[in-house]
């Protein structure tokens, strides 16, 4: 892994991410965490994967036209992430916010690698991103997650179902295989990336209790680590003032 930008911040702000396949219930859990933190008068900011206004339009245009290769798909999502990181995540952390990320760099690691990008390459691209204080990984059997999605939303999009990977001509079958591979990637990261596993095959409230317990420890702890600059100090250009 690259070295620039890792490590927790010493600021009051904390970064919490949720990861998991579609239908793992992670967004619901993050929403409940958000509400709770607000209730506690913690300053909170929520950011979602693939939501930067600057990039979203291009990504969605490319998706519609089926023009994206795994490399451009990966780079556009990295651009989207960088935009949110430079514009929101980093400044808000510095200002002392709790930044809640609905999907973080691990989503890119999982998806881009399944699409055939080189694992080392993908990781290096995101080496500028700070490691969250906690990354919750909502672990759920693939069938459960897939069934939750297919129940509510019967029409699957081309890239969403991984049709670009030629796994199957049937979008539903393709989706199942694709999600299964993403789960494999997540599982392979649990130890190496230190993901906090939440058994998501349980009731919503039970999961949320566990999430809040973990976060309350964070709320009590004083940030101790020295701030690591995002890049070596000599490379910092004093500009944009």
């Amino acid at each position, binding site marked *: 892994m*690259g070295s*620039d930008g890792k490590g927790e911040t010493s600021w009051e702000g904390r970064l919490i991410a949720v990861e998991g396949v579609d239908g793992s219930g992670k967004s619901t859990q993050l929403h409940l965490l958000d509400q709770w933190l607000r209730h506690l008068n913690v300053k909170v900011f929520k950011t979602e994967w693939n939501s930067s206004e*600057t*990039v979203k*339009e*291009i990504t969605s*245009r*490319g998706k519609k*036209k089926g*023009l994206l*290769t*795994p*490399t*451009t798909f990966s*780079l*556009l999502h*990295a*651009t989207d992430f*960088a*935009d949110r*990181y*430079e*514009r929101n995540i980093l400044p808000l952390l510095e200002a002392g916010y709790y930044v809640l990320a609905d999907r973080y760099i691990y989503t890119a690691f999982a998806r881009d690698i399944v*699409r*055939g*990008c*080189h694992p*080392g*390459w993908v990781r*290096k*691209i995101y*080496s*500028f991103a700070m490691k969250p204080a906690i990354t919750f990984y909502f672990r759920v059997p693939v069938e459960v997650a897939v069934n939750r999605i297919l129940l509510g939303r019967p029409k699957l999009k081309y890239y969403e179902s991984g049709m670009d990977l030629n796994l199957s001509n049937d979008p539903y079958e393709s989706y199942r295989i694709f999600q299964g591979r993403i789960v494999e990637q997540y599982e392979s990261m649990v130890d190496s990336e230190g993901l906090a596993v939440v058994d998501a095959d349980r009731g919503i409230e039970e999961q949320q209790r566990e999430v809040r317990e973990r976060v309350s420890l964070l709320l009590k702890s004083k940030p101790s680590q020295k701030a690591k600059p995002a*890049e*070596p100090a000599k*490379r*910092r*250009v*004093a*500009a*944009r*003032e």
Partner: protein
Amino acid sequence: MEFYGHGIPYLKDLELKGHLIVIEGPDASGRSTHAQAIQKRLEADGHAVITTGLKRSELISYGIMQAKANLGIGRRTLGLFYAADFADQLENKIIPSLEAGYIVLADRYIYTLIARNDVRGIPRRWSRDLFGFALKPDLIFYLDVSPLELVHRVFQKFSSLDYYESGMDLGLSDDMYKSFMNYQTRIAKEFQKMKATFGLEFLDGDRPIEEVDAELQEKIDWYLSNSK
């Protein structure tokens, strides 16, 4: 042909029969004029030629233009945007053309992007890793034009200095002329640093265009007659 880093793992058994020739240099260094002249001459000699450049992908270039118009755009973001645009050109134009045996003339390549990132404080290591998916060109020319000569050419051509080509986003100076001179000097230094690493061939670009053109043609002819 080889890739710089990990390449593009899902593209297997590539057979690249063509040649990739890159011309690098700042705006108004004469790059495009040279590229056009070279294309004409090579086509007259019976070669199939295609030109490419930065910010030319149908999909992404519009987004970059919009992003640049928005001054709140971050440096890493813009750098990645350019990389996505380049990747699109590489996979959809450069590689297929090389497979078909074309001579691909690239009016700028990854080196400009690395230099721009570097002067903006983004580690060179990161940029080099980022462009690990890029093909190593057969020839890379750099039109080395001194900032003073350059600024005159820019004024003759456009009558004003471009915001980003003057590095105004870096806050080097409120004076656009000073900023341009400072920025272009920094960029030129980056190319100097990349010279040996990437095997850039420097051409004295302060000379009249015909002279530079003749040297380029000669070098390309020599390369083509000695390859394969």
